[in-house]
Structures are given as C-alpha cells and as structure tokens.
C-alpha cells in the first residue's frame, strides 16, 4: 500500500508540552501535507512541505521532511487543550497529480 503511516497512533500530553507526530511513506512524493480533524468535523489543512524542502514553520507548528528516510514529523510546540484532535499526514505521490493519500491518523489529547 502507498498509504502513509503515522506514529504513534495515540498521544496524550500535558498542556504546555510539545507534541511530536511522525509519518512514513513508501514511494517518492511530490509533497506531503498535514491535516487536523476535530471530532465530528471536516479536515483542516495545516501545512504543506514540498519534496525539495526539509523544514517549514507555521506558528507553533514545525514540519520536517526526510526524503531519504521517506518520513516526516509534525511538532506542535507549547500545546494547548484546543490542539486536541486527530492529525493526518497526506502524501501526493509523484505522478499522482493532486490526489492525496491519507494515513490512518494520530489521536492527540492535550490535558489541561
């Protein structure tokens, strides 16, 4: 399967701590995107990193991409209770145009 795989499947941290979530994939990509899904809601795009980029920042979010290891990480710094959600990595494989392939997601719980 080309599906990305996130790790861990679930993460529980205290408010103020950093949360690190990982994603691995199997074939070459055009770009990798992270999305957040609050319970019962649609997905919200967080950040996109291209295959020729190694790191991107957006507010409290930091994404890294290592194409040699076919892996990415999403770091949320100074977490807040409102960060509680499911996080998905999605990859656009080379030649797949804009079709996203999603992983199964990571459930993040931030305890107040």
């Amino acid at each position: 399967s080309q599906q990305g795989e996130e790790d861990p499947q679930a993460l529980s941290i205290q408010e103020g701590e950093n949360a690190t979530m990982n994603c691995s994939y199997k074939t070459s990509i055009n770009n990798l995107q992270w999305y957040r899904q609050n319970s019962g809601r649609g997905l919200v795009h967080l950040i996109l990193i291209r295959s020729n980029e190694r790191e991107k920042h957006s507010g409290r979010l930091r994404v890294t991409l290592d194409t040699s290891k076919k892996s990415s990480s999403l770091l949320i710094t100074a977490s807040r209770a409102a960060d509680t959600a499911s996080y998905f990595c999605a990859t656009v494989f080379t030649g797949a145009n804009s079709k996203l392939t999603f992983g199964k997601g990571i459930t993040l719980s931030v305890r107040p």
Partner: protein
Amino acid sequence: GAGVSQSPSNKVTEKGKDVELRCDPISGHTALYWYRQSLGQGLEFLIYFQGNSAPDKSGLPSDRFSAERTGGSVSTLTIQRTQQEDSAVYLCASSLTRVALLEQFFGPGTRLTVL
C-alpha cells in the same frame, strides 16, 4: 466566505436503498474530491473531478458507487443498493486547480448509516 458544504449532515438508510449525497464546493474551485472515512480509519479516496476533464474514478469501491458534477460546480455521490459496509463519513473537498501544491478544503462530511 462560504466553505465547502455537504448535505445531508446525517443519513440513515435501510440496506438495499439508494442514497444521494451532495457537495457544494467553494466558488471558483475547479477540482473536487470525494473521500470515505470509516470509523477509526484514514480517508479513502473515491473520485476526483477537474474542470471538464474525465473524472478519476479509480477509488470507487464498486459499480454501486457513482458521482456526477454538474456545471463544474455541485457534485452528487450516489450509492445504489446500499450495504452495511457502506456506513462511513463521506467527505468532499475542493481546491483551486488540480495543481498538486494546493491545499484541499474539506466540507463537514455526511455520516451515512446503513441499517
């Protein structure tokens, strides 16, 4: 501005019945996608429309599933002779073009329950 909207938000149907799910993409977005999310799972790609091009139907799980996009805007996903395994949240997304570097904007989804 208005985001992607989907209707109904919830649909309960009996096994064997047909259902239609509707998606209104963001105005001006030429690309439209349908995904299915089963409980505790990631999103499964179903079908993709881009302008007047032939849709990419490679993700449709069976010939009971079909989708239309009329006038390059509203899309309808139809499931015929529903089965219990069709129960899932069906998500629609749109983006400005088919260019791979653009984010997709998702609707809130339709939760389908087949009894």
